[in-house]
């Protein structure tokens, strides 16, 4: 087959919802797009452990501590599912880690905001994981098999994350006036960054059309953002706290909520590395990697020594 035939054959498969698997022919640009997207997604899970990991020792009860620990462990697991999905495309784990540390690869900007109170653990689970689920449910049907399978596993675990966050918010909102204020303050700080998680407006998202054609993406950024807002308004009402947007209003014609324009200057600043915690987050990752070097080397040396011993025993 000629290159052009391969390409037609590939697109036909995609159009008839046949998954692409690692050894199948695929255009180089499809491979590159997936490596970029999956590795960034994996990095987001790993960096996403930092704001919450910070609160494990300060969780207000043993129950909350056990739950938060389980959640953060899940994030590590999600990172690992995704790294291994990306590796099926021919990039090594070390290369991905190196790209994160050099700043070449990005991760979700949301994790460059600080988690300053216990209520933030509630808001992060409720809003950040809630927004992530909107994206991830759609990705369960992505055209690349290993990515779609990793997303199915992740989605199964993610809804616990959102519910435990909402549970923290419910508890705070049913508490003292001061506790309810903590919940309101967390909502105020996390609302806009959560809406930014869906990425630029559709007209400023140049790669979306290609990703839709390849069925990596199923819904546009703005559609997913709208779905998230529509789902979340009622949840805030039940908590009895107010979403920080005076223009938030039901629109009967579109059967959805209207809301204010996002502050894209802030979004671009955080993406460019100038958010409140960008340097701190990256430093934590680089330090962990550097300080863990001797462990990785020692484990490998031990494995080699054991393998030699087994071989010698077999010969004797």
């Amino acid at each position: 087959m000629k290159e052009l035939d391969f390409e037609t054959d590939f697109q036909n498969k995609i159009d008839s919802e046949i998954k692409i698997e690692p050894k199948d022919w695929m255009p180089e640009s499809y491979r590159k797009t997936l490596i970029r997207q999956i590795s960034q997604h994996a990095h987001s899970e790993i960096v996403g452990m930092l704001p919450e990991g910070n609160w494990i020792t300060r969780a207000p009860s043993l129950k909350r501590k056990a739950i938060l620990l389980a959640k953060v462990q899940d994030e590590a697991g999600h990172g690992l599912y995704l790294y291994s999905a990306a590796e099926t495309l021919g990039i090594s784990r070390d290369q991905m880690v190196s790209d994160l540390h050099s700043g070449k690869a990005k991760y979700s900007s949301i994790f460059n905001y600080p988690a300053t109170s216990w209520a933030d653990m509630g808001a992060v689970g409720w809003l950040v994981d809630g927004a992530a689920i909107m994206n991830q449910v759609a990705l369960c049907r992505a055209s690349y098999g290993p990515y779609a399978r990793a997303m199915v596993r992740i989605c199964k675990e993610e809804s616990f994350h959102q519910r435990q966050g909402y549970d923290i918010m419910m508890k705070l909102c049913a508490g003292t006036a001061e506790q309810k204020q903590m919940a309101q303050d967390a909502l105020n700080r996390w609302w806009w960054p959560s809406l930014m998680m869906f990425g630029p407006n559709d007209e400023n998202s140049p790669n979306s059309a290609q990703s839709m054609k390849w069925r990596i993406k199923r819904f546009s950024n703005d559609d997913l953002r709208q779905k998230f807002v529509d789902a979340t308004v009622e949840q805030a009402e039940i908590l009895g706290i107010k979403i920080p947007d005076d223009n938030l209003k039901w629109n009967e014609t579109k059967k959805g909520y209207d809301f204010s324009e996002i502050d894209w200057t802030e979004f671009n600043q955080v993406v460019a590395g100038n958010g409140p915690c960008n340097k701190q987050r990256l430093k934590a990752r680089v330090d962990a990697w550097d300080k863990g070097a001797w462990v990785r080397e020692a484990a490998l040396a031990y494995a080699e020594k054991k393998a030699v011993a087994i071989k010698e025993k077999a010969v004797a």
Partner: protein
Amino acid sequence: MNNTEWPLWEVFIRSRQGLNHKHVGSLHAADQDMAIENARDVYTRRQEGVSIWVVESKHIVASDPAQGDSLFEPAANKIYRHPTFYQLPDAIKHM
């Protein structure tokens, strides 16, 4: 970056007694014992399994998708291998 990447392992999980092991994904580990332990932590946090197999990825031999036609096409025209190929008289209720 120093060259100490741990080998890659493929993980297979038996979800319960009576079912076969099924491929669930892969992970890095220095040796086979660590591969089992990591697989336990990564792939069975919610009781997804009662047994784990790990095999180093480099030992997997896979068929080539480009030769899929010549490998699998010969089975396509042998419909007489399926019971539905055979017409039974109406009088026979079960066979």
